[in-house]
């Protein structure tokens, strides 16, 4: 079992690497998300231009964030909805609980929302006596298991069908115990039947938002299941929980972002359902909620504006960075011990929870650059992780042996002659020692490496030495 805090990353990793079932599930990502994204991007010649434009839209909006939020709010008001400005997670939890209490809600359904995870909304509602039923299939399964999501768009990606069947047998006690649950189809049908009753009985429906449109006061959700729509249209009250950087100016801007979102996330041309909601039902509407609330969350985001981390606020939460990350696909999401995982989580979590708690996460990177290469809004994720490492170093949070080692290395690296001279003898010795096997299974002071893998033996002479001896005249 993993420990759910970012500082436990290093202790969570060995368990994740040894978990065969998890490793098998993570193996599916390559043929799934990665291959599908590549195909979808290749099928749209304008994809790269759309990524540039999506980046520019987000940059423009962030630099005028106050103005667009004010205009968004005035449109929501004009349509009979309410905006609740919440500087902290505590403010947002209280806003949602207060609405539920005021309308006497007993039952509540909830669509998928990473912001709700971030602020622990489910626990706050349970404490207030209005336990929300998660309606996204993956989230529903995790709710039965009492686990956090392990991926921002495929929350139950770490589970297999046998585990899910077991959970369903444990939770759905009114169904015949002998029923067959050995196929994904049977599991989906059982969840469909069970959740249908919850949708129809709920007093309040809570959704997240993928976008907020300033022009129209609409909040936008994208789903493939249709759960978000049943969640927000059947109950009397619809509450949208959204972080403030989700706002975009216009429907044209939303269209650009939607074009890169689904392709980057699942490799679909577009998600099955993209829904734009504005205010409560109109007087002559046959259905829809009577109340519409937007709980607008800051929770540390405005603190990133105007800093080197502002670019992180462009994130549209597609998950492409984690699907392409060699670290994420080796250890899965739970090892990160945080709501946001993978490269985007490694940048966002220290900003939200502090570098003391989450400083480990930006270190969990090979700096291979694939995350930046696929990011639909071109966030320089490796560069931002490097900034966090610098901050960790500056604040003396890095362990002493690492700090002194780096200091010695830096001293030598700034003096190339000394560096070459100092390297010459060890390279020769190591090259000679490893001449037969070409690699080492054990070396003094290097057990951190050699305990888990072998170290390739150096060639014996450095590149600079060979260059001096033979390379120079070969041009």
């Amino acid at each position, binding site marked *: 079992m993993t420990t759910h805090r970012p500082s436990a990353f290093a202790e969570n990793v060995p368990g994740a690497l040894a978990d065969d079932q998890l490793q098998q599930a993570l193996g599916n990502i390559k043929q799934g998300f990665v291959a599908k994204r590549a195909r979808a991007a290749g099928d749209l010649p304008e994809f790269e231009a759309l990524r540039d434009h999506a980046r520019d839209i987000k940059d423009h909006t962030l630099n005028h964030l106050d103005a667009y*939020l004010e205009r968004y709010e005035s449109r929501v008001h004009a349509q009979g909805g309410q905006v609740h400005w919440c500087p902290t997670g505590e403010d947002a939890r209280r806003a949602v609980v207060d609405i539920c209490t005021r309308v006497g809600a007993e039952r509540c359904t909830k669509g998928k929302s990473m912001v709700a995870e971030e602020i622990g909304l489910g626990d706050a509602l349970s404490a207030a006596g209005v336990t929300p039923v998660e309606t996204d299939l993956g989230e529903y399964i995790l709710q039965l298991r009492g686990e956090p999501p392990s991926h921002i768009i495929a929350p139950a990606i770490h589970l297999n069908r046998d585990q899910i069947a077991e959970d369903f047998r444990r939770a759905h006690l009114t169904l015949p115990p002998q029923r067959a649950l050995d196929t994904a189809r049977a599991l989906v049908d059982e969840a*469909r039947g069970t959740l249908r009753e919850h949708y129809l009985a709920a007093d309040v429906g809570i959704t997240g938002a993928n976008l907020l449109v300033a022009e129209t006061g609409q909040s936008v959700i994208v789903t493939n299941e249709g759960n978000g729509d049943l969640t927000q249209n059947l109950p009397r009250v619809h509450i949208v929980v959204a972080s403030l950087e989700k706002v975009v100016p216009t429907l044209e801007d939303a269209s650009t972002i939607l074009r890169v979102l689904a392709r980057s996330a699942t490799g679909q041309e577009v998600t099955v359902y993209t829904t734009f909601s504005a205010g409560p*039902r109109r007087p002559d509407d046959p259905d829809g909620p009577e109340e519409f609330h937007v709980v607008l969350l800051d929770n540390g985001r405005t603190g990133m504006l105007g800093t080197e981390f502002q670019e992180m606020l462009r994130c549209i939460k597609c998950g492409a960075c984690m699907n392409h990350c060699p670290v994420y696909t080796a250890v899965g999401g739970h090892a990160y011990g945080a709501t946001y995982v993978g490269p985007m989580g490694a940048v966002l979590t220290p900003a939200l929870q502090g570098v003391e708690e989450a400083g480990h996460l930006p270190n969990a990177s090979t700096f291979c650059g694939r995350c930046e290469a696929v990011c639909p809004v071109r966030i320089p994720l490796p560069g931002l992780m490097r900034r966090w490492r610098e901050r960790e170093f500056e604040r003396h949070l890095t362990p002493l042996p690492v700090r002194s080692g780096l200091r010695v290395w830096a001293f030598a690296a700034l003096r190339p002659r000394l560096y070459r001279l100092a390297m010459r003898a060890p390279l020769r010795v190591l090259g000679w020692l490893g001449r037969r096997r070409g690699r080492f299974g054990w070396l003094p002071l290097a057990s951190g490496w050699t305990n888990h893998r072998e170290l390739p033996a150096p060639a014996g002479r450095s590149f600079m030495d060979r260059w001096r001896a033979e390379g120079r005249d070969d041009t």
Partner: protein
Amino acid sequence: MSEGRQRILGGIRRALRRGPLDAEAVAGVDRRLSEPPRGPLPGRAQTDHTALFRRMAEGASATVAPLETWDDIPAAVAAYLRDRNAPTQVCLAPHPELTGLPWAESAPTLTVNDGPPSGATAVGIARGHTGVAETGTLFLHSGPDGPTTLNFLPEFHIVALRAGELVGVYEDAWDRLRADDGWVPRTVNMITGPSRTADIEQTLQLGAHGPRALHILLVADGHG
């Protein structure tokens, strides 16, 4: 004015090292909202809209039935449901173009009502507003003629659309919607294919919470 609102807006301005936007910047923001610039558009939408719409919708597991005239709808619905051994109780959106069709004469096997849909509604027929060729996407919106839940509760979701209502890209659909009375409606639904999930072992299953099938009746009516 709430304290939270002040704190957030003040925090944004402090972080961006400025006060409220100056008049020129405000005018820029308002102009961007009133005359929205378009981004790069998929060139694929410059081909024949009907063929592209059909190919993309079918690629998303929807089915498309091309019809000659609007009055062909009842018989086409009856045939579609019969072929799938589907229930014959049909819930219509209370749209005059649907309720005004000769259901009893042309589709006597069906039981038709236009009441609000319920959890037990098996077949729902809605009137689409616009179809977008670039991804085979239907745009529907809420209003007296269009209950939103009809798009999600039934097992079979059937949408009637005229070929003349097809456009190339999402931006064209927004322009059509903006021109309507009652813009902005409570809900605009972009729908591309039937409901699905891949939450179990990343294997695709249709019919997660919403319809298991999406059938589009595309009426030529002189177009295409």
